[in-house]
C-alpha cells in the first residue's frame, strides 16, 4: 500500500508586511496579504522528497483556516502535493494552539496517514509546539526539529540539532515529523506544476464533519486569554557617522560613554 504522507501547513500574514492585531486581539488577517508560511515550504519539500524516494506515496496537504487559506494549499499543490484538505468553519476563528491541534488531529484521523510532516513553527505565532501536540493527541512518536530526514523500511530517521548536542533520532511509522529551515531549500513551483494544481482535488471540511463542537474551539474555547496588546514604540534613530578613518574609535567612545567598555 502506498505511503500516505500528510503535510500540515498554515496560511499566515506576510512577515514583511505591517502585521497587526484586530480589535478582538486575534491576528489581523486582512491588513496584510497572506501566504503559505515560509517554514511550511520546508515541510512540503521534505514530504515531496520522501514521496519521490519511496516511489509509491501520496502527499496530502492539510490546512485549517478561512477562505484565503486555500492559497496556501494551492501553493503546496503547485509544488507537487497530490491533494488538499481544507478545514474551514467560522467558529474556528480565534482558536489557540491547543484547539488547533485538536482540529488537525481529527482531520488527520479522517484523512488517514502513515507520516505527518510539519514545519518547525509558523511565522506568525512562532510557538513551534504544534507537532508535539499532534504527536501527543495521536499517540505517535514525535521525530521533530530535523535538519535531515529520510524514510527507509517503515522507519523515519533524522538529525536533530539541539542547543547542546546533535542527535540522531528514529521511530517506526506512523510518526509525526517536523523539519527546520536547514532541511533543504524548497522548490519553486514550475509552470506545469501551477497548471496541474488547478485540477487537483481539495476536500472541504467543517467542524460537523470532524465531530467537534463549536464551543471547544475559537476564542471562547481558548485556554489562554490576551489581557493587553501594546504596540512597541519605534526605536528612535540614533547617531550615524561616516567612517573617515576614525569610525572604530568613535564607536569605541560611544560604547565607553554607555559603560560597555
Amino acid at each position, binding site marked *: 500500500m502506498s505511503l500516505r504522507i500528510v503535510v500540515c501547513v498554515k496560511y499566515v500574514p506576510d512577515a514583511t508586511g505591517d502585521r497587526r492585531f484586530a480589535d478582538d486581539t486575534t491576528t489581523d488577517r486582512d491588513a496584510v496579504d497572506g501566504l503559505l508560511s515560509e517554514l511550511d515550504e520546508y515541510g512540503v519539500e521534505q514530504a515531496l522528497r520522501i514521496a519521490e524516494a519511496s516511489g509509491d506515496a501520496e502527499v496530502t496537504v492539510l490546512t485549517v483556516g478561512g477562505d484565503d487559506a486555500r492559497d496556501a494549499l494551492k501553493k503546496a499543490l503547485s509544488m507537487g502535493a497530490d491533494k488538499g484538505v481544507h478545514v474551514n468553519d467560522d467558529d474556528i476563528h480565534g482558536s489557540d494552539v491547543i484547539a488547533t491541534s485538536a482540529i488537525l488531529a481529527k482531520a488527520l484521523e479522517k484523512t488517514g496517514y502513515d507520516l505527518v510532516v510539519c514545519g518547525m513553527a509558523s511565522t506568525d505565532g512562532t510557538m*513551534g509546539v504544534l507537532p508535539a501536540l499532534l504527536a501527543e493527541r495521536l499517540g505517535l512518536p514525535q521525530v521533530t*526539529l530535523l535538519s535531515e530526514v529520510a524514510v527507509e523500511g517503515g522507519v523515519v530517521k533524522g538529525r536533530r540539532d*539541539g542547543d547542546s548536542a546533535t542527535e540522531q533520532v528514529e521511530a517506526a511509522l506512523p510518526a509525526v515529523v517536523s523539519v527546520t529551515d536547514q532541511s533543504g531549500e524548497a522548490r519553486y513551483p514550475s509552470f506545469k506544476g501551477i497548471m496541474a494544481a488547478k485540477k487537483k482535488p481539495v476536500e472541504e471540511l467543517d467542524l460537523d464533519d470532524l465531530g467537534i463542537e463549536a464551543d471547544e474551539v475559537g476564542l471562547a474555547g481558548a*485556554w489562554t486569554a490576551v*489581557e493587553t*496588546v501594546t504596540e512597541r514604540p519605534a526605536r528612535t534613530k540614533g547617531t550615524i557617522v561616516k567612517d573617515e578613518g576614525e569610525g572604530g574609535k568613535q564607536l569605541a567612545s560611544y560604547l565607553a560613554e554607555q559603560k*560597555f567598555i
Partner: protein
Amino acid sequence: MAEILVLVDHADGAVRKPALELLTLARRIGEPSAVVLGAGAAAADIAAKAAEFGAAKVYVADAAEFADYLVVPKVDALTQIAKAADAAAVLVTSSGEGKEIAARVALRLGSGIITDAVDLEAGADGPIATQSVFAASFQVKSKVSHGSPVITVKPNAAAPEAAPAAGTVENVTVEFTGNAAKVTARTARVSTGRPELTEAAIVVSGGRGVGAAEGFGVVEELADALGAAVGASRAAVDAGWYPHSNQVGQTGKQVSPQLYVAAGISGAIQHRAGMQTSKTIVAINKDAEAPIFELVDYGVVGDLFDVLPQLTGEVKARKG
C-alpha cells in the same frame, strides 16, 4: 503557598543560567520547586544550586530513558510530578525541546500554554506573561485561563537573584509511557569558550558584508575583546560561513542582550525579529541606506574590515 514547578535545564552536570532566571521569576508568583531530570551523579550539586536560588523542594528523577528517547520521558516525569504536587504553574525554558515538553505537559494536564514569555508577573487570577510578537513590534500580556498555567520563558527574561531556601530533595520514580522516538546517537556541541548566544550580555553578529567564512575572524576578535557571544545573519549561515547554531533571527535564536553589534548586516525583517529587543544596538555597514540604521543607537557607515579591528584595538587598550 502556591507551588510553582521549574524544569531545570542542565548541561554537562551544571545548571544553565536560564534555569536560575526561572527560579527567580517563579518566586514572584509562588514558591518554586525545582525538577531535575536525568542529571545522574550531578543531581545533588544541581539541587544545591536550585536551593540557593529559592527552590523549597527539588524533585529528582534519573533513568536511562531521559537520554535514550526524545521528549516523552521528560513529559512523563514533569506531568507526574505536577499532578502529585498539584502545582499551581509549570515553568520551562523556551528552547526547542523545552517548548515541546511544555506543550505535551499542558495537554496532559488540561492546561493552556503560553510560550516565549519575556516577563512574568503575578495577576489577580494567576500569572500574567508578557510576549514580544510580530518581530518584536508588539508586546502582548496574556494569561492561561484553563488549568494550571504552563509557561515557557525565554533566556534573559530576568536577572538571576539568589534567595536561599530549603531545597529538600525528593526522589521520584517515573512511570514511562512510550511512543517516543529513539535517540540512536548524540554528539555534544563543541564549546567555543564564548558565552551562550541567548544568555550573553553582549552579542557581536556578522552578515552578508562579512563576505566569507574567514571574514568572521574580525567579528570573533571583537567578540572576544568584549567577552561577547558571536551571532550570524541568515544570509551568512545560508552561505555556509558560520554555523546555524549561531543564527540570530526569526528561524534562529532570538536574543535580547544589553548590547548588540551588527556588522555587515542589512537588517531584513527575518533578522530584526531576532534582535530588535536588544537594549542598545550599534551597526557597521557600508550601505548608508541599510534598514539596520533605522534601529541603531549608534551607526558607522563604513567598511567593517576597517572599523571592527580599530574598535577591537580600542576596546583592548581601554580595558588595559
